[in-house]
């Protein structure tokens, strides 16, 4: 699994300088490292060195049942599996995370995963200064053999499947998206979802609303926004909101409790089945980083670190949560069919991270919004 760059984007590896392997060297003394960019030192692509400590830096809480938890949990489990230290630096926000990176370097971590596209500038800069290996998100340009890798998540592909699912399942013909802001990952999925929906139900009505800027904790807001979309006729909600998404679930719950046509919720990242008391969870777009985390560690030890790792439907890095019982067979088939096409590269889902382009795209798909 993993390895090949995403079909949609051209690999950036060629641009990167070639790594000349050298013997393993202890992490450079902080002071020196901090004072002068140690450009003279050779990239520490340390073939053969066993990886003992890996860390992940995440912007929000490791228990957000979303993006942050996904990365943290995956790395922790990989750590357990391989019997190595896995440390999680949570709630880092988008301020200056250099202190944390410095600390991790100081403690001799072999690999630091900067688990947010928002870290894609600071981490490579840090790596270049200190020769500590890092993995960035969504920054192919920074890829440097032996030093910097990049993680590409083709979330839109799985979101497309969710769109297909929604298109098949909706009875009202109205489908709603609720987001806690417009970070790249959410935008990718919004577009993927919209395209999947359009492909399955061209005349569908598509609702889109944002709870607020970085409103990942605003569960109450999420509930109100979701309730409004449901009231506007949506019977399927595709919700992206980490902590806030619990508010969405509750809105759907209360909507269903009123009786009338049942509404479904499609979640992203993370599996809420354990708290899905009223069985309204239709599915979830799941990410699984453990595959590529293991791969990375292998590559570091093999001295082949420093490339683009892609999570897509093909390598099952992103996939849909198994559909609940009682979902008609034809629906499942439609999803399977779409998946097959994506895997066979017959179907390209546009990868759009930019908010404005994203909005342009959904307006183009569903003009009468």
């Amino acid at each position: 699994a993993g390895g090949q760059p995403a079909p949609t984007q051209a690999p950036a590896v060629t641009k990167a300088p070639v790594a000349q392997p050298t013997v393993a060297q202890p992490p450079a003394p902080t002071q020196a490292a901090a004072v002068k960019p140690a450009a003279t030192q050779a990239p520490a692509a340390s073939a053969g060195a066993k990886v003992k400590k890996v860390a992940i830096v995440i912007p929000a809480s490791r228990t957000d049942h979303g993006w942050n938890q996904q990365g943290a949990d995956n790395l922790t489990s990989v750590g357990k599996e391989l019997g190595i230290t896995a440390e999680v630096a949570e709630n880092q926000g988008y301020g200056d995370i250099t202190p944390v990176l410095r600390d991790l370097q100081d403690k001799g971590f072999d690999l630091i995963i900067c688990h947010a596209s928002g870290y894609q500038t600071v981490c490579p800069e840090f790596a270049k200064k200190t020769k500590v290996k890092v993995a960035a998100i969504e920054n192919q340009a920074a890829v440097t053999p032996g030093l910097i890798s990049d993680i590409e998540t083709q979330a839109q592909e799985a979101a497309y499947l969710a769109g297909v699912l929604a298109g098949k399942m909706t009875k009202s013909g109205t489908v709603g998206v609720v987001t806690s802001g417009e970070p790249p990952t959410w935008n990718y999925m919004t577009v993927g979802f919209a395209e999947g929906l359009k492909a399955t139900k061209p005349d569908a009505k598509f609702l889109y609303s944002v709870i607020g800027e970085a409103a990942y904790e605003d569960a109450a807001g999420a509930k109100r926004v979701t309730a409004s979309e449901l009231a506007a006729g949506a019977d399927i909600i595709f919700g992206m909101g980490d902590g806030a998404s619990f508010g969405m679930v509750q809105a759907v719950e209360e909507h269903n409790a009123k009786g009338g046509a049942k509404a479904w919720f499609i979640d992203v990242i993370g599996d809420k089945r354990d708290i899905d008391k009223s069985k309204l969870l239709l599915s979830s777009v799941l990410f699984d980083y453990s595959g590529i985390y293991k791969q990375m560690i292998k590559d570091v030890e093999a001295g082949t670190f420093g490339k683009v790792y892609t999570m897509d439907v093909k390598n099952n890095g992103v996939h849909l949560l198994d559909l609940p019982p009682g979902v008609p067979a034809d629906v499942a088939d439609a999803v399977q069919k779409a998946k097959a096409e994506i895997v066979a590269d017959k179907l390209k889902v546009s990868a759009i991270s930019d908010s404005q382009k994203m909005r342009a795209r959904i307006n183009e798909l569903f003009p009468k919004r």
Partner: protein
Amino acid sequence: MNRRSFVSAITPVISSGLVIAAAFLVGAILLSLLGKNPLQAYHVLISRGLGSSFGVSETLIKMAPLLIVSAGLLIALKASVWNIGVDGQFLVGACLAGVVAPKLAGAIPLVPMLFISALAGVLGGMLWGVIPALLKVRYGLNEIITTIMMNYVAVYLTSWLVKGPFKDPQVVPPQTAVVPEAFRLPPIPFTPVHIGLLVGLIAVLVVYLLFRNTTFGFKLWVLGQNPRTAIHAGMRVSRLTVLALLLSAGFAGLAGANDVLGVKGMFQGEWNPGYGLTGFALVFLARLDSLWVVPFAYFFSFLLLGGEIMARSANIPVYFVDVLEGLMLVFFAVGVYLERTLAERDRRRVPATQGG
């Protein structure tokens, strides 16, 4: 004026020490209640935050924005202008700096480039400060409310700016173009700390001198004591109010520029360090006494940095840092009370002379 304040110079040091101890003690109790080992945790805090070279340097780096923001808050609060809008002013300033800097980088020499970018930050802050200022003097709107509201507006405005007009098309996340490292704030010679720290120290010193030695500071103080008196004394109250808020906001914007030019290299969506609250805490703990801001700034910076590391290494939820910070504020407040009571007792002992 508080330069003559009766609290003798040394008491704050002592009480501050006690206060910190008290906060850590309560924190320790809380930890042990939840089955954690406080000693180990605190050991990490000290050894990483103070013991390690990177700990010290990073603490000093984090200090810069705190100092700059506090300098501004000192001006506003001494004039009783309640600028709660530091965060918004910071964001707008940072955003403008983040837009201007990359364009200038390389186009013109480093020094003017830094100056102009910093200026952009200051102007951004002032732009955000002038609105509540005018609302206050024109319509008598209480700045506490308007500045709070402006914070939210700033978040949405800047987030739109970096998603739309000013987004760097080359990269995925919403952020401005990156300033090449060669064009960031240079380090203080022989240290890994960028010169933002000096800017911060100078800012605080300037404010100290402003209130100690200038008529403008004196007028701000009178205004802060009682606007009616300021009017009666022939001071231009509206002008003073606007200036106080503008300067304060300007410093906030400068802090934004500092972070963009010093550490981040660009302005980024969802970035909101919220120095305002910490700055407020600092300034009040320093009892609006300018120079005291410096040690407090160092300590808070140390706490924010070491606290996070402690939480991680001793696997305590990071929220524990906030708990410590909050406790410290409470105990500081109590400390102030104790000092005052002692001071009054001293004054009672003054041999009573006859008559008034």
